[in-house]
Every structure is written in C-alpha cells, then in structure tokens.
C-alpha cells in the first residue's frame, strides 16, 4: 500500500519534494488515498497515532501476559496482577518492579496499565456518546430550525443549567438503586458489581454531549444557508442526503477536534467521581484514582515520586497523543488544509 502510493506520487509530481503542492499529485489519487498521504506528512499525528495504537493493544493484551504458557517467556515484571498484595511497600522503580510499588506493595506498572484500561474505556464511551447523541441532536436542531430548534436547544440549556456534578451524582445513585437488584437477579452478583461502571457511563454520557450538540448546531446553522446546500436541493437531493453527505462531513473537522478535548475532560471527571466514591472503587483503579492516591502519599519526609509521576506521565502522554492524532485527522480529512499551511 505504502510503496504503491509513494510511487504514484513520484510519478505524478516531478517536484515531489514540495509536498505542500498537493494539486500535482492529487490528480490520480482517490480522496481516501490523498487523505492518507496528508496524514503521513504530519509527523506528530503519526507518532501520536502509533503511540495510541501500541498503548491500546498493550493494555488490551495485558491479562494475556499472565496466562501460564506465555508468562514463562516474559520478564516477571510485566506479569504482576494489579491487585496482588506483597510485603514490598513503597519500593522505588527497579528491575523487579519497573514502576515501583504502592502502599500495599502492589506493582505500579500493572496498576497503571489496569487504570489506563478503565480510563480509556470511560473516555471512549463518553466521547462516543457525545459523538452520536451530540452530533445528531445538534445537526437536527440546526438543520430543521424554527420551533424544533428552540425546543431541542432549550432542553440542552436545562441540562446545562443543572450543576453537572450534582446531576451526575443523582443519576448514578438513582440508577444504582433502581437496577442493582435487577442486574443481580437477571445476570449474576458479579455482574451487578460491574454494573457500577455502567451507571458511571450513563452518568458521564448524559452530560458529555451537551457542548457537542451546541457546537454542531452552530456549525450546521451556518452551513445550512450555504449555497452548496441550496444547489443540492435544486438538484433534487433529499434532506437526509444533504445532512449526511454535505452538512456532517463539513462539521467533521470541528467535531474531531472537540472530541479529542472531550476525552481528557471525561477522564478527569471520572477521577473526580472516583474520589467522591461514585466511580471506580478500590481495588480497581483508573489513572485518575491512581494519581489521587499518589498525591495523598506526598509528605515532607519521603517523596514517593513514582506514585504520581508514572500514572500522571502516562495520562499526559495518552492525552497528548490523542490531541496530535485529532489535529492530524482534521487536517488530513480537509482537502484544503495543504494550501492553508
């Protein structure tokens, strides 16, 4: 794939060194190929994407490392269980424990990976909810306009005006009261314990889409009056076609950028809820709760820096990578980006 594309580019552009001048080689590339080429030119986005890919696969594969057949092949420091206690408390990073150990002697590396699992899941679910509900809600409100727009956006305003933290807390606790028994009966008591996470998702999801809906509505409102939408109508295109083929692709750039901002805010929100005892409960961990735990261990006598540096650094790296990836995607998906640079 890659070499084929490169060859195409070289063949079509004698001055392939000037990658900004897309016109010459864009001639024989399909839009998807051209977007991929533009993405590849953005080094930060590529590194960010690669880092995310590696992290996610590492985090997903983590439990596999402890499987009996595989563990023998790996160094022992990557095969600790996140909840396995030991007598080795507050051990500094060393060969045995790459990231050190915490107050209960648990391996910090495994806890960070475990925490990243939950943080990423929470972030992605929140972002997914804001993507689906927020974009559709905003697009319909902006496109239909009039009274429909008024009603839909007033609903958003009402949800906005409630203090979101109180709203989420009420939501999580009521849902838990209502469904805990039901979950235990229908599925299993273990699943009911996991149910906590579902309620957390519901709570976070319910507030995450509001800003997205507002942003998308504003964009759609201005796009709806663009001449190319009128031209499409004159052509005989249906409203659904116009929304999905013209309007949504044109709000895509803004949506991607805002999504990459939503993920970190939700990850931090989750850590705050966990701190209040509503989110992830020990011995489970998320990156946010690990950082909070590390911060509580800071004292003037001994500095257990690894407790805060590793989860914090990991979170920062994840969020940076996500932002670079989002920027790169936005530029790659916009054919005009190369000219603007």
């Amino acid at each position, binding site marked *: 794939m890659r070499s084929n594309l490169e060859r195409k580019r070289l063949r079509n552009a004698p001055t392939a060194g000037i990658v900004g001048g897309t016109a010459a080689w*864009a001639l024989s590339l399909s839009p998807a190929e051209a977007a991929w080429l533009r993405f590849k030119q953005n080094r930060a986005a590529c590194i960010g994407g690669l880092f995310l890919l590696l992290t996610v696969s590492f985090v997903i594969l983590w439990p596999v490392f402890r499987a009996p057949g595989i563990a023998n092949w790996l160094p022992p420091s990557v095969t600790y269980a996140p909840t396995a206690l030991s007598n080795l408390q507050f051990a500094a990073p060393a060969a045995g424990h790459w990231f050190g150990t915490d107050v209960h002697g648990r391996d910090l590396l495994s806890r960070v990976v475990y925490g990243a699992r939950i943080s990423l899941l929470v972030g992605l679910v929140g972002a997914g909810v804001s993507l689906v509900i927020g974009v559709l809600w905003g697009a319909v409100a902006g496109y239909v306009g009039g009274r429909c727009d008024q009603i839909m956006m007033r609903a958003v305003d009402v949800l906005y005006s409630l203090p979101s933290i109180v709203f989420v807390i009420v939501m999580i606790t009521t849902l838990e009261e209502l469904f805990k028994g039901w979950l235990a009966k229908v599925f299993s008591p273990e699943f009911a314990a996991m149910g906590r996470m579902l309620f957390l998702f519901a709570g976070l999801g319910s507030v995450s889409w509001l800003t997205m809906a507002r942003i998308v509505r504003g964009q759609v409102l201005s796009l709806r009056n663009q001449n190319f939408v009128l031209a499409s109508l004159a052509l*005989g295109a249906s409203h659904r076609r116009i929304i999905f083929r013209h309007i949504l692709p044109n709000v895509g750039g803004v949506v991607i950028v805002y999504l990459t901002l939503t993920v970190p805010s939700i990850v931090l929100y989750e850590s705050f809820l966990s701190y209040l005892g509503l989110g992830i409960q020990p011995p489970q961990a998320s990156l946010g709760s690990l950082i909070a735990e590390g911060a509580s261990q800071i004292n003037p006598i001994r500095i257990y820096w690894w407790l805060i540096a590793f989860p914090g650094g990991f979170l920062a790296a994840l969020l940076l990578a996500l932002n670079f990836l989002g920027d790169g995607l936005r530029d790659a998906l916009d054919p005009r980006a190369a000219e603007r640079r």
Partner: protein
Amino acid sequence: MSLLEVCNLKVRFQADRRRLRRSSGCVRAVDDVSFAIEPGETLGLVGESGCGKTSLARAVIRLIEPASGSVWFEGEELTRLDAAALRSRRRKFQMIFQDPYTTLDPLMTAGEAIGEALDVHQLCQGEEDRRRQIEVLLSEVGLDPEHARRYPHEFSGGQRQRIGIARALAVRPKLVVCDEPVSALDVSVQAQIINLLRELQRSLGIAYLFITHDLAVVEHISQRILVMYLGRVMEAGEAKLICRSPKHPYTQALLSAVPVLDPDSKRQRIILPGEPPSPIDPPSGCPFHPRCPLAEARCREQTPALREIGAGHQVACHLVAPPPMG
C-alpha cells in the same frame, strides 16, 4: 404547449418585525409576474439589483415557496406537488448559480459533485457507467476528464462554473435557470461561459431562463426579454425589438446605460434620479413613477397593466399608446 408557464406569481418575504414594526411587514419581492418559455428558447430576465430577479427564479423552481400564483411545467402544476414528487420532477429543471465559489461543496471532488446529480435521480448503471458519464459531462463543458478527482479549491472561477454547469446538465434537464451565471467571473471568462451555454443549448435543446443585469449579454443570448422593476414586469418582448426600440421609459434608461465602444457616440445617457424605492413600501400607482422622467398625474394613482402593443411586445406604461383597434 409551453414548456414553462408562470401565471401571476407572487413572492412575499416577512420583514424583520422587530426593526420594521411600523411598516406592513412584508416585502413584495415578486408581484404578479406572468411569462412562458417555449422548449429550446432563452428568456432573458433583466433588471437592477434587488428588483426580484433571483426571487422569481427561485420561486419558479420552488426553492422558495411562492405566496400565490401558479407555475406550470409541461402541463403540471409545480406549486401543488408534494415534496417527494417535486424532488423527482427536479430532474427536468435545473439551476446554475451566481457564485461559483460557494455553490460547490469544498469537501467533494468535481466528480463527486457531478456524480451526486446522477445518484439522486439514479441515472447510471453501475460504477463503470457512472465514471464514464462523469467523464463525458466534464468534456462536454470543456474540462479535462482527469479533473474529476480535483477539489473545488483547485479550480479557477470559470472552471468551477463549468462544473456547476456539468452538474446541472448531468440529469439532462429541459429547462435550466441561470441565475447570473457570469456576473462573478471576469469578462474574458464570461464570454467563454456564455458561448458554452449557447453551444449546449444548440446541441441539447435546453431552454434557459437567463437572469442577468448585463444588457449586452442578454441581447447576445436570448430570444425574448423580460424587464423587471421592483418585482413587476415593465416590458416584455423580442430581444431585438426591445434592445432596438425600447418603449418603456425604464427600459430606455436601462439601455442608455450600456457602455458603447464608439467614443463619438452622440447617444444621450438617461440618468434616473433617486434610488429604487423599497419593495416593503412600494409607491402607489406605477412603481416607476417617482423616478420616471415622463411621469404624469395618473401614473401616481393607477397601476398600469401589462398591455400588448405589438406582436408579442408588452409594456406596462400609461404613456405608451396601445395599437389602434381593429
């Protein structure tokens, strides 16, 4: 039967109530306009900015809803059709827009823009046929078929207008409404686009409703002309007749403003006093009377009807004598 017949079409816009509380609150953009277009014919629509040309064009193809009146296209009442039926009829009448810089989706390649027209009306069998049709259309409007993969920002204004034309022609319409298709382009490109439109008319037999404020252009391209002022038709008739011997004082003033290449020309330029009145609050009687150099007392009181004064030549003016009876 005419291809298109427009009867007593009226377009109203609600004026912003907050700012114009005292006025009647209604802009009469198009007031009681009737005309017909025969198959393969070009009807030129001229008038100064804000006289309702674009509103009329959009109301004819129902991009905006007319307040009253009827539009008959091939014997079918367009204003009574429901949304789905109207969408399917749109294949027969297309529009070319004024500003080629904003009428193409910036994220769609030229090929996709033209292909959308084909997809909407399901005019192609399979991917291969679709690609071939797009290439044919691009070469029809004088573009390289290779250009199908380019984005709008990679084209010049004239090329973009050609894409707009190819998109309108993709569905093989019988009527194309051209809303000032060349006013955003520079003069040399204007001529190219107009010649292209004429060639396409000759080879495909399309009828045009050609809107412009450039009288030199309209004489060149159209068989008949409709002159509008403040939403009303002032004069209608054969293009040559109107350009050679305009009867309505407004048309005369309009034509006297066309630049002439001969520096020794003795022609008198008629300068109209004042501005066109607001269509929210049109003058009583003849809408042109406040600026008309020949206005009389009755012009202020009675609105002149559009009267036939010669073969197919209609004028709305009290001062133009109707032909002797019998």
